[in-house]
């Protein structure tokens, strides 16, 4: 995926940009809620060409509201994109607010995707020039307006910290000129600052959403109460692909507060006056499921199939050099098979949405990562033209990929709820059990590895055959697959910085009825584990140090890889030795253009790894907000650690998911969180994302440290349920 960073892209294809007319924005200091955007942004129905006001609004009281085209669920775009605008606008950070944009694929396209969307850690990278351009254009329009009003040359005017000033002593805030500036033509090529002129980029600006998320006032989807809205929960099938054969709602209908019970393609929906009535009635429903089209295999059976598939040749996805090293006399050949389970994302806020259906139009509000795809799905299901459907994007309580739905399955369900309910407002909620059992998992994957080491201890050949299910196939994303290959199934196993002599990676596509989805760092959730655990094993077999061994393997052009590995080595004071009761391990992974190396320290506590410290070096190009970068590395480490220690979704009899909530699908808890230290590499390269890249290295770093300490080699996850082999 290439990120468009051309200057031309900064305002979108044909767009202009003007200052909002004195529209009052609701909301508290530092934190305009999404409703603010809803009020200020022109309705999605506006015809081409792209209307003004897309990205920045200045109110008479000098408040600058940046309309952020990416959803905020903790990864930081609200603050990050607002920083870019504020920098070029020369706004004072205290006057800046952020608001989330509604669905509009034209105005708010992710320049890396060509449609609106948040994913692949692209938010900052694709917006870097666009948002700065928006700020610079706005600044120029304000300056020209002030120059005219004061009768002075524009060149004599300076702007700093939200004040427009002229040497004559004239001075003003932005708000006074906002309306007049809106009438001016939008400059084509506003001048952007050079990096030495930056005052906000590169600093630890406080996040715009911290205050409201600390005192409980931040408003999420579940906190919306549209007038007269009914709460809806759905009784769902126990096996993927099962359908309702029959149901008995006699008991459920008796629950006080229940308004309706209706069959939907997704299951049986209960409509009620409040959440508890809906949940209570759902429990009283008796549903018979038709399993004839369902996936009824157990995950053990699917794993066995994946394991067999990974022993076949597979389709080659990258091959360099030759694999003769495997057959060379005196070569040591090492093999390993790694098995990775299905994983649920389990964001703290489950899937939820509110929808209002009126005569001939609909409006949905919730946290979605592909609002444009969702809007189309809502329109289609409701039989409405696109222009009559509005989607507002709200803050979401986490996602980790769960809200990035190429199938628009949640939007479709929301529409089905409204369609079956008729005109009115509905709040659809998934419970945690719905979430854990609801599919859309990180695909179960098997990696079959072979490596050869020659008599001198050099790695001379490497082969990796990967078997898993495609995320894109069968969804709106299928168009992005080339030649039947879904690169997200094996990304991170190819294009490696290491010179192994001969190299081959291959993919075997599995087909199952289990819906799968991207899970924070996607292919690298398993490819980094397989690659970095196996490289570590080969280095050990060759008698090499894990850090120096990797450095020696790096290709000559791998300068950024080298820099992060050396930086983390120095940060951790790496010795390569077990010290007392502590073992150490390292891993490197590049994902989404960001380079991350990590080292962990762990202890063996009653046969379980307790990770006590983690060190992390990251190169994500220009560090726009180091505070957010550090936070994402810390969070990525905790999220990845929880998964490799605890997490797996298993399918039992008839393919029924056996886990249901945080008790049997455990999350990392505070006592398992290591102390984390992060160092950020200085860089003037274009910025890349940090939401995902902190995740991939932690798993292999922990497995490698565990092997160093105990001799046990991890072959399957989660670690706590799969003691390694010796």
């Amino acid at each position, binding site marked *: 995926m290439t990120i468009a960073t051309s200057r031309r892209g900064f305002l979108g294809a044909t767009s202009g940009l003007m200052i909002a007319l004195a529209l009052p924005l609701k909301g508290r200091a530092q934190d305009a809620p999404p409703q603010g955007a809803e009020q200020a942004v022109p309705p999605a129905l506006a015809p081409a060409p792209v209307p003004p006001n897309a990205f920045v609004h200045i109110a008479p009281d000098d408040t600058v509201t940046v309309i952020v085209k990416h959803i905020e*669920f*903790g*990864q930081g775009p609200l603050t990050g994109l607002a920083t870019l605008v504020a920098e070029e606008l020369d706004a004072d950070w205290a006057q800046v607010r952020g608001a989330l944009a509604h669905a509009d694929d034209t105005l708010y396209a992710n320049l890396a995707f060509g449609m609106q969307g948040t994913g692949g850690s692209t938010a900052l990278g694709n917006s870097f020039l666009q948002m700065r351009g928006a700020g610079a254009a706005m600044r120029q329009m304000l300056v020209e307006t002030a120059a005219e009003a004061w009768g002075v040359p524009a060149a004599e005017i300076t702007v700093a910290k939200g004040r427009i000033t002229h040497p004559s002593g004239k001075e003003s805030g932005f708000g006074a000129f906002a309306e007049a500036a809106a009438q001016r033509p939008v400059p084509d090529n506003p001048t952007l600052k050079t990096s030495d002129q930056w005052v906000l980029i590169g600093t630890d600006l*406080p*996040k715009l*959403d*911290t*205050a*409201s*998320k*600390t*005192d*409980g*006032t*931040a408003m*999420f989807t*579940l*906190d919306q*109460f549209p007038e007269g809205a009914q*709460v809806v929960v759905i009784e769902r099938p126990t096996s993927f692909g099962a359908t309702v054969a029959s149901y008995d709602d006699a008991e459920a209908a008796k629950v*006080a*507060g229940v308004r309706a019970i209706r069959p939907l393609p997704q299951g049986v929906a209960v409509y009620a006056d*409040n*959440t*508890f*009535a809906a949940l*209570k009635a759902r429990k009283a429903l008796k549903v018979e499921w038709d399993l004839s089209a369902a996936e009824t295999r157990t995950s053990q059976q699917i794993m066995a199939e994946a394991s067999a598939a990974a022993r076949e040749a597979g389709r080659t996805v990258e091959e360099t050099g030759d694999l003769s090293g495997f057959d060379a006399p005196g070569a040591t050949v090492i093999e390993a098979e790694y098995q990775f389970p299905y994983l649920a994302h*389990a*964001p*703290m*806020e489950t899937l939820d949405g509110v929808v209002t259906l009126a005569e001939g139009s609909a409006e949905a509000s919730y946290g979605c990562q592909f609002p444009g795809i969702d809007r189309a799905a809502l329109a289609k299901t409701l039989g409405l033209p696109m222009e009559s459907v509005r989607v507002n994007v709200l*803050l979401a*309580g*986490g*996602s*980790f990929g769960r809200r990035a739905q190429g199938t628009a399955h949640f939007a479709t369900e929301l529409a089905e709820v409204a369609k079956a309910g008729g005109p009115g407002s509905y709040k659809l909620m998934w*419970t*945690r059990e719905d979430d854990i059992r609801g599919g859309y998992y990180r695909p179960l994957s098997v990696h079959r590895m072979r490596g050869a080491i020659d008599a001198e201890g050099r790695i001379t050949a490497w082969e990796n055959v990967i078997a898993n299910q495609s995320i894109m196939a069968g969804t709106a994303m299928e168009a992005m697959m080339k030649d039947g290959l879904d690169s997200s199934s094996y990304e991170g196993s190819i294009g490696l910085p290491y010179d192994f002599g001969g190299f081959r990676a291959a993919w075997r596509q599995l087909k199952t009825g289990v819906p799968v989805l991207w899970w924070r760092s996607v292919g690298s959730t398993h490819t980094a584990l397989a690659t970095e655990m196996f490289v570590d094993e080969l280095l050990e077999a060759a008698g090499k140090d894990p850090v120096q061994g990797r450095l020696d393997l790096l290709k000559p052009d791998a300068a950024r890889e080298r820099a992060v590995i050396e930086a983390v080595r120095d940060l951790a004071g790496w010795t390569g030795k077990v010290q007392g009761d502590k073992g150490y391990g390292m891993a490197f992974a590049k994902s989404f253009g960001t380079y991350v190396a990590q080292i962990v320290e762990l202890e063996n506590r009653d046969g379980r790894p307790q990770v006590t410290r983690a060190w992390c070096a990251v190169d994500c190009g220009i560090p726009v907000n180091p*505070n957010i970068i550090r*936070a994402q590395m*810390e*969070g*990525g*480490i*905790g*999220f990845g*650690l*929880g998964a490799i220690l605890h997490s797996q979704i298993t399918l039992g009899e008839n393919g029924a998911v056996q886990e249901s*909530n*945080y*008790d049997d699908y455990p*999350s*990392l*808890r*505070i*006592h398992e*969180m*290591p*102390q*984390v230290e992060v160092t950020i590499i200085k860089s003037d390269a274009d910025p890349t994302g940090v939401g995902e890249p902190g995740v991939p290295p932690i798993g292999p770093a922990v497995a490698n440290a565990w092997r160093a300490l105990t001799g046990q080699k991890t072959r399957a996850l989660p670690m706590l349920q799969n003691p390694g082999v010796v």
Partner: protein
Amino acid sequence: MTTLTINGAERTLDVDPDTPLLWVLRDELRLTGTKFGCGVAQCGACTVMLNGMPRRACVTPIRTLAGADVTTIEGMSGREYDAVQAAWRALDVPQCGWCQSGQVMSATMLLQQLPAPTDQQIDEAMAGNICRCATYHRIRTAIHDAARTLEG
């Protein structure tokens, strides 16, 4: 009908007596700072203060609360709460934010009991609060920071 005190005001609630406090707070009173994460006392997102002690609102039926004194994040105040708020903001603890009301409630009640908790005491008091964004590292630091400001 159950009568209890919520955030200092007496409330009489005419709801299904089995309704968990969580849904009473959210649906009836629109006190949405208290969050739903699991419904089974596993995650702590719904943590409130009940008669001065932490309580999971999702597993507390309203019928058990006659005469009780409940405080949600909307009604919190006091030195410890203020110290926690300030420390949380200074460190930008929240990521997605969904778990943070519960974290702040647990942290505040911890500091009310133990003004200078050790790492281990923090782990014990906070182990019931899941953060899927894994902001634990900053939570721990923020609690220590808040404790330090309370010393003075």
